[in-house]
């Protein structure tokens, strides 16, 4: 999974039917120290994340589809599956 920061959202009236109830958020992947890394991307939200939140991104179609739409098989490659409270160094 990648860490990312929600930087915006996307409104698309006309879209794949499986996306009908989904929120599409614009996310900037980040390193654990908070620095942006790589290109921003779109992710379906499954945890009610909001702008500014640091989130966990799953980049695998089956898991992303199941998490964000409740069933497998939607044309999705990235979903937000958690909102990060804290990142502890070393890992306990």
């Amino acid at each position: 999974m990648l860490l990312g920061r929600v930087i915006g959202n996307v409104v698309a009236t006309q879209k794949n039917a499986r996306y009908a109830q989904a929120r599409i958020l614009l996310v900037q992947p980040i390193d654990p120290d908070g620095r942006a890394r790589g290109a921003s991307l779109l992710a379906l939200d499954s945890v009610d994340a909001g702008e500014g939140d640091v989130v966990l991104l799953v980049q695998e179609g089956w898991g992303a589809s199941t998490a964000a739409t409740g069933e497998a098989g939607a044309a999705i490659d990235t979903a937000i599956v958690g909102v990060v409270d804290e990142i502890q160094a070393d890992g306990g």
Partner: protein
Amino acid sequence: MARVIGRVVATVKNPALEGRKLLVIQSLDARLRPTGRPLVALDAAGAGAGELVFWCRGKEASFPFEGGDVPTDCTIIGIIDSEAHVSFQRSAISPQPEGPLVRLRAES
């Protein structure tokens, strides 16, 4: 291979992730040098701080968990006993004993 370098605390998360440990890992090359970006991995091996682990990615990353409906693309599936337990044939990785395949074709 990777080193556990941190832990992620997330209260709000997908229900299937409840009770699972989320660890920050840094991938390593054969010489145990960092390579690539840090990732967040779900733990299926009981790993902890600073440990040397190995992990898998893709849909298969959800297989270690009961029911298989855990949304993860990166899971720690083993703990390497120690750095001394990593051995490899040095000539196999660098420097390359032979030139690139393209040049070999040109010579033949």
